[in-house]
C-alpha cells in the first residue's frame, strides 16, 4: 500500500496541475503576444486582472457599473485599450454608428468574448477559432451543398479586396488564407460578411446584396463580374 502512495500522489498532483492549466494556465499564450503589455516590474496579468477589490469572476479592474447597463462586463476592458490610445486596431468594433454583430452586454461569452479571447493569439485577432473557417459555424451551423461554397480557393479575385475597417474602408469583399487568419485566396464567411461594420439590415454584408435601382447585385458582381 505504502509503495503506491508516492506515485499516486504524483499522479493526482499532475492531474490537478493539468486542471489548473486548463482553467487558469493561459498566461503562457499571452506572454510574447500583442496582449503582453508588461513593462519591467509591471506584469502582463496586472493590465487586466487584479487580486483584490476586483470586478466579477475574472478579477477585472472596474469601477461601478454605469447607469446605462449596456457598457458592462468585458466590453469596457477591451475598449480601454482599443480606443485609439494603446492601439488603433479595432476601434471600429466599438463604433455605435456602424452595424455590429449582436451581443448581450455583461453576459459572459455573449459579448466581445463571444468570438474573442484575450488569451488566444493563435488564430489572429485573438479569435476563439480560425476566422471564418469554424468561428461563424460554431453558432450559425454548417454551410451545406446548396449554400455558396466557403473554404475553397476563389476562381477570380474580387474587384475590391481592400476591405480594411481599421483604415475606415468598410466596403468590399476579401479573400482569406486557409486558416482564416489573414489575407489569402480562399472564400470564407468573412468574404461577404463583417461582424463589425457590415451594412445595416443586410446580415452584416460588406456590400449591398441587392441594389434597388439595378438588376445586378453589387456584392455578387464584386467576384463574378
Amino acid at each position: 500500500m505504502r509503495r503506491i502512495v508516492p506515485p499516486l500522489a504524483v499522479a493526482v498532483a499532475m492531474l490537478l496541475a493539468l486542471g489548473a492549466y486548463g482553467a487558469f494556465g493561459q498566461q503562457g499564450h499571452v506572454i510574447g503576444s500583442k496582449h503582453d503589455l508588461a513593462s519591467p516590474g509591471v506584469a502582463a496579468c496586472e493590465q487586466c486582472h487584479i487580486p483584490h477589490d476586483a470586478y466579477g469572476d475574472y478579477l477585472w479592474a472596474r469601477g461601478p457599473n454605469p447607469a446605462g447597463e449596456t457598457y458592462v462586463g468585458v466590453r469596457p476592458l477591451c475598449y480601454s485599450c482599443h480606443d485609439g490610445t494603446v492601439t488603433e486596431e479595432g476601434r471600429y468594433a466599438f463604433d455605435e454608428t456602424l452595424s455590429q454583430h449582436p451581443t448581450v452586454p455583461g453576459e459572459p461569452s455573449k459579448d466581445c468574448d463571444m468570438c474573442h479571447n484575450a488569451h488566444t493569439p493563435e488564430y489572429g485577432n485573438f479569435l476563439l477559432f480560425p476566422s471564418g473557417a469554424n468561428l461563424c459555424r460554431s453558432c450559425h451551423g454548417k454551410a451545406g451543398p446548396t449554400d455558396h461554397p466557403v473554404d475553397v480557393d476563389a476562381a477570380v479575385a474580387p474587384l475590391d479586396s481592400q476591405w480594411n475597417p481599421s483604415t475606415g474602408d468598410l466596403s468590399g469583399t476579401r479573400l482569406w488564407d486557409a486558416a482564416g487568419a489573414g489575407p489569402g485566396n480562399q472564400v470564407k464567411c468573412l468574404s461577404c460578411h463583417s461582424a463589425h461594420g457590415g451594412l445595416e439590415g443586410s446580415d452584416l454584408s460588406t456590400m449591398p446584396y441587392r441594389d434597388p435601382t439595378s438588376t445586378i447585385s453589387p456584392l455578387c458582381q464584386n467576384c463574378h463580374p
Partner: protein
Amino acid sequence: MKQGPMPLWGSRFRRWIGERMQALGRQRWLLVALGLVALLGLVVYLVAFFPQRASNPRVTTSVFQAALMEHLQAPQPLDGQPPITWNQPAGMAVLHGTRFVLDTGNDRILELDDAGAVRAIIDRTIDERVALQGPMAIASDGEYLYVANSGAHQILVLTPAGQVVKAIDLANPEAPDGVPPRPIGLAVAANGDILVSDAASHRVLRYDPDGRLLQAIGAGKRESGTKGFNTPGGIAIDAAGNIYVVDILNGRVVQLSPDGAFLGQFGELGDTAGTFSRPKEVAIDATGKVYVSDGLLAAVQVFGPQGEYLGFIGREEPGDSDSGSLFRAPAGLKVAGDTLYVVDRFLGLFAFQVLP
C-alpha cells in the same frame, strides 16, 4: 501487507491525545484555558479585520465635490441643418473662450458656441490639408489649435477657423528609429515646444515650433520607473513648466521637469483610491490640482500638486459614492478657469465647476 481493517488515523490520534492528557494531569485545564483564549483571539481578529478589509479605500469612497454644470451627450445642430452628432470624441481645447471638440470617429473638429451648438465644422472642406485620421488629442497655445493626427503620424497646427498653419510630419527622416510616431497625447510648452506622447515608440517626443525633434524621453520600448514609459498618453504642463505625463499601462502619472528630467510619479495599477486602471488624460488647474481621467474606473481622480489623493469626480449623486457613474469612458480633460471639461468617448461633453 497487513490483513484486516487499517487502523484509522483518527483513533490513533485520539489515543495519542488521551495519553498526553493523562501525562499532563492537572495541567490539562491550563491547556484548555489557553485554547479558549486562542479561540477568543481569533474571534476578535475576525471581527476587527474583516470590516476593515470591506472598507478598503475603493475608488468609490471619496467623492470630490464638483458641481455638474453641463452635459452635452450630442451637440446642438447648426441653424437649419440636420442633427449632428460626434462619434467617440477624444478631447477638447479652448481657444479665445471657444470650445473645440475633437470628433475622433468622424475625423473632424466641432467648434461649439456657448450654448453647445455647433458653430463650425473643421475638416478637409475648410482646408484639404485637414486630412484627419483618428486624431486622438487636441491642445491650444492661446493662438492656434494643435491636433495630434494619430493615423497620419503628424501634428497639425490650425487657426481657429481651421486653416492649416503648419503640418508637422513626425514620420520624417528624423523620426526615432524610422518608426512613424503615433501621437496620442499633446501639450504645448510656454516656449512653443510641442510635447507629444508617441504610443508607437513608448516615448515622449519634444519638437520645436518648426517641427524639429529636440528630445526623446523614454527607452524606445515598454519601460517603467525612471527609465521610460509603457504607453505615454495625456500630457499637461503646470504653471511652473513641469510636465505631467499619464503612463497608461503602468497606471501612473510621471512628473518631469521643464527640460524633461524625471522628478517623480504617483499612482500604480489597481482600482482603489488613488490607483489607476486605465488612466488616459491629465489636466492641471490654477491651484495646482491634478485631474486624471480613467477610462476603466469610469471616474476622474483628483490629486494635489504633490500627488496626494483628494478624491474623485463622476457619481450620479455627487454626495453618494455608491451611486452609478456619470461616465462610460472618460478621456479628454481640459481646465478653463473654474471649469473642468471631461470628454467621454460615448457620452459626450461634461462640464464641472471645480474651483470656488
